[in-house]
């Protein structure tokens, strides 16, 4: 979000493109048995870019992406925005520490962050819509965390290939 002056090629297009792909994947219908375990691709992609470019992609991006997600999910505006801004916040604050971690340790962090995101969203949904908070809804945090190595590898390849900085 912060403008860092006259850096040469900034290529925000790549970031936006990957986020759009993630949004599409989030909206993809899954078979019934996977309904509760749908991975949150948006969280993963957002988390990656916040780790890789903490000075450019931050809480503001997270919030805007969350609002777009609210529109796409037909939920009340702001429901996903807080969770996604939180994801971005953790990534930006902890980006130095995260770079020292092994991939599987990062998975654990992604799991916890994803849990917090789901808790936030569910909590707001519960206040506005009166639903039970069941344990099965958290399985999506698990699948999200398991996909982190894949997304990390792909996006790092993309970033190094295209040279987003």
């Amino acid at each position, binding site marked *: 979000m912060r403008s860092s002056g006259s850096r040469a090629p900034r290529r925000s297009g790549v970031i936006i493109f990957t986020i759009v792909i993630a949004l599409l994947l989030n909206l993809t*219908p899954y078979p019934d048995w996977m309904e509760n375990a749908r991975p949150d691709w948006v969280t993963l992609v957002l988390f990656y870019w916040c780790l890789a470019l903490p000075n450019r992609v931050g809480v503001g991006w997270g919030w805007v992406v969350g609002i777009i997600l609210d529109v796409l999910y037909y939920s009340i505006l702001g429901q996903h925005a*807080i969770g996604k801004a939180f994801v971005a916040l953790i990534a930006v604050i902890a980006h130095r520490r995260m770079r020292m971690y092994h991939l599987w340790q990062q998975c654990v962090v992604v799991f916890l962050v994803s849990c917090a995101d789901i808790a936030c969203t569910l909590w707001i949904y519960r206040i506005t819509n009166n639903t039970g908070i069941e344990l099965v809804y958290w399985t999506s945090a698990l699948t999200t965390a398991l996909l982190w190595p894949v997304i990390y590898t792909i996006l790092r390849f993309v970033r190094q290939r295209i040279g987003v900085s």
Partner: protein
Amino acid sequence: MSNDRSSVIYRFMMLVVLSVALMIIDHRSGLLRTVKIVTPVINIPFESVVGLPGKVQSSLERYYPDNKLYDRFIELKKKQVVLEIKLQQYDALIKENRRLFTLLSASKKAGDEVLLTEIIDVGLEPFSHKVVVNRGIESGVYLGQPAIAPLGVLGQVSEVGFRRSVITLITDPSHGLPVQVERNGLRTIVKGSGTSDKIGLPFLDRQADIQQGDVLITSGMGGRFPVGYKVAEVTEIVKDANEAFLNITANTSAQINFSKEVLLVWNDDRPGFPSRSAMRGRTQ
């Protein structure tokens, strides 16, 4: 570094406050309603891309039909014959009903105005018991409009937008629906259970005359849903001696996970709502 960090946290807190404000405005007042009518414009390209694989699959099935499809065709053909026969009877009933109502000089009308819509193939979150259909405000869809699938009541319109509306399913825990038992006319309210295909009847006491297999139909109480649409079938009745009320579960008649087509019904009984033909000048 610490300065940087605190500024990030500060910005996050500001965004949280902004979100909370947005949510309160959205939830408590109608100020954002006009905005929400326009926002589905963003959804339409996303949903068409997401729905592409399904479309390709169904068109492939059309070009390479297998035996299963043929069997289904035969099955549907048989079903259609049965339905047509039933329809004749229904037509006769409507005419009789109309005649009787004119005799009674009542304004009530049998045979509702309907609009056929299609469910958009999009994966919303599992905890939101909602589906999206491809018609919106320009087709005259209104808030609270009943939505009915071929086999039973599906839910009601909870949000109307540009070419899109959101239907809250009867399985949603916030959804209540006045019903009656088809067998004896016992009236009660069903509430969504939060699990798919199941609804609960929390308001019947232990003396209530209800049994397994009873069919529940809409009672028309409250004026939102028209009378006589199938809702659910009672599957389980738990009698707990410590509880004043029965714990009853029913299976929804509409196969919610498999429905593709949804009828939106204009219910003329509803006070304060002009009928669709009056509103748009066309009849169906």
